[in-house]
């Protein structure tokens, strides 16, 4: 095991200090702190956890416990473009499964991976985005695409890749 105490020593990132300041001002908790870290870095870098653990005197394991409990937190960097597939009941019934497979196939994602090799795309799923009336639903960079089909999914990917669909 690496010595956790030494981890994060090298963190001199100004962004961390800004997050810390905001956190102390708002009297936040671990969840809101992790949300703020993720907002700045796009994911939760291991180093930042050790840095905050030292600054706030909270064991790093507490951060790890919370970060792995909630689906929202990412411990690995994500792609430039995020495709979110809704896996709610209505989307399932209306056939979201084959569309997800098609998207993964087009992006050449190996089994178990969510981010494409070139770092351009991350494909994730979410339990339900609550837009069941336009199922199946996909979200490409925060824009909602309803009544999705396999053909429309390819178009969406191309559009996002060209920077249009974002």
């Amino acid at each position: 095991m690496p010595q956790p105490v030494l981890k994060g020593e090298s963190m001199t990132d100004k962004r961390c200090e800004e997050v810390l300041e905001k956190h102390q001002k708002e009297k936040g908790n671990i969840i809101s702190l992790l949300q703020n870290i993720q907002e700045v870095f796009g994911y939760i870098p291991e180093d930042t956890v050790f840095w905050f653990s030292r600054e706030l005197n909270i064991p790093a394991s507490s951060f790890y416990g919370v970060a792995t409990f909630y689906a929202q937190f990412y411990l690995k960097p994500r792609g430039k473009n995020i495709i979110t597939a809704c896996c709610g009941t209505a989307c399932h019934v209306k056939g979201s499964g084959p569309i997800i497979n098609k998207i993964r196939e087009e992006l050449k994602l190996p089994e178990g991976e969510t981010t494409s090799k070139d770092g351009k795309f991350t494909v994730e799923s979410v339990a339900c985005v609550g837009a069941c009336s336009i199922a199946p639903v996909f979200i490409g960079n925060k824009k909602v695409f309803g009544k999705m089909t396999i053909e429309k999914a390819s178009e969406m990917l191309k559009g996002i890749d060209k920077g249009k669909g974002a």
Partner: protein
Amino acid sequence: MPAKKTAKKADIKDLVIRVCVGTGGLAAGSQEVMDEFGSQLKSHGIKAEIVKKCVNKTGCRGFCAKDVLADVILNDKSETYQLLTPEMVSRIVEEHIVNGSPVKEWLVGPEYHAFHDKQTKILLKQCGHIDPEDIDAYIKIGGYEGARKIFSLEPSEVIEEIRASGLRGRGGAGFLTGLKWELCSKAEGSPKYIICNADEGDPGAFMDRSVIEGNPHSVIEGMVIGGYAIGANYGYVYIRAEYPLAIQRLKIAISDARKKGFLGENIFKTKFDFDIKIKEGAGAFICGEETALIASIEGKRGMPRAKPPFPAHKGLWGKPTVINNVETLSTLPTIITQGAKWFSSIGTEKSKGTKVFAITGKIKNTGLIEVPMGMSLREIVYDIGGGCEKNCALKAVQTGGPSGGCIPASHIDMPVDYESLMAIGSMMGSGGMVVMDDTTCMVDMAKFFLSFTQNESCGKCTPCRIGTKRMLEILTRITNGKGREGDIELLLELGNSIKLTSLCGLGMSAPNPVLSTIRFFRDEYEAHIRDGICPAAVCKALRIYTVSVELCKMCGKCFKACPSAAIAWEKKQPAKIDKGKCIKCGACYEACPFNAIL
């Protein structure tokens, strides 16, 4: 509304255009439609500030199947257009607004009126009519009157009124709201808290999102009423981060309410202080359970704890806390203004008032509806929902999401209320209703729900953590064509013990979808296990691929695509599939350009 002569002599008196901008509407392109109305009106010589006043956005009106929907109200006469695209706008402006004759073929049809006529709208009345980002629009239609009224009453009188109305929690279990409040108000400890549970996680339910997006002030007003009744000065809204639009509108609403003096210190010029903070959830279904939600607000892993003590006695930070669902809170203002007697006159003996349902799945009119409790399922599915898509046969209706169960088509005349749903092995839940037809496999459906709850199980108690995993393994085995004799009995045994021994509501209700599909669709399970057939042809592994000799053009593409050498083919000969070697991967099916693989 301002009167203004346009360049083309059209007399635009009292023109109001209302465009639905809920999540469904936005996805269908309502923002573009709205912008196009703006620029078209401007091109007709109408000043920008007047355009801004008459083109309004509204929340969801429920009939999402026909989005984008827009009302054009001219001289007090309202017409509604459906399935709008920006390209259609110029003709509407030209013919309807300028020349006064609506574009008839684009107006909503009889199904739009049928969809609305059978509903009783209390909660959704204002959604779809007012601009959710304008507090004055809410005040104009009587908003915050309820909150104003309670300050002339004692808190105990407010509780009594809600108790008399018979309102039950809309989030799941259906506990009496008035009773919950009374327990908390009598509990010792201060400060007290009121929490709005907007962690709507049931796949297939989206009423809370729509209410917050369409009428956020009604939720705030409900929290003020609840806060005053139980003596809480602080409120939290715990809302899913997956609902960015709802969060944004709620933030605007809270800040506007503060400016008006409806939130903050000495609200409504009384001695009562009340303020609300938003807490964004981090993506965990279990946080809809109240003790897990409390842990999450405190910044911990969202794990439930054993009850009692109930949150009404020991809740957030160990203090007395009331947790109410969005729909419950947003019903409160109307109960206060119209009276408990009026509210309790709607619905059945034990289930009072109206309930919002999200009807989705294989149904024609998908969307959000509000009906009196006790309406028959038939009326909901056929009269409001318009029946199954493509006129397929209705198989079942799933209610209550992953905690609920399936109601088979044979029980279509049952009334929809708390007790009747419980009796049939389902539950009200938050009000998701997913309609299924004969192309839905019930075993696959049960597997879908169980894999959801299995995935969302927090892992604290053994029955839920391991029990649901074992159940899921059995279901996966069955859908893969490897089901064994005795699997159904094993599922029943496991399911019933998980229900009895789990710690929280998630585990106690997780087996429901499996148990209820076994109860009503046991034959489908048996067909999977004994005959190796999926009657709905959904389970891929149980499909038997064959080549249609009539359609086969003898090209050999399937032969090349097959990874297990199960296809025999020679030039000028139709292909043949060896069932023994076939691994049912579907590669031949995908490869065939003539749809000759069946």
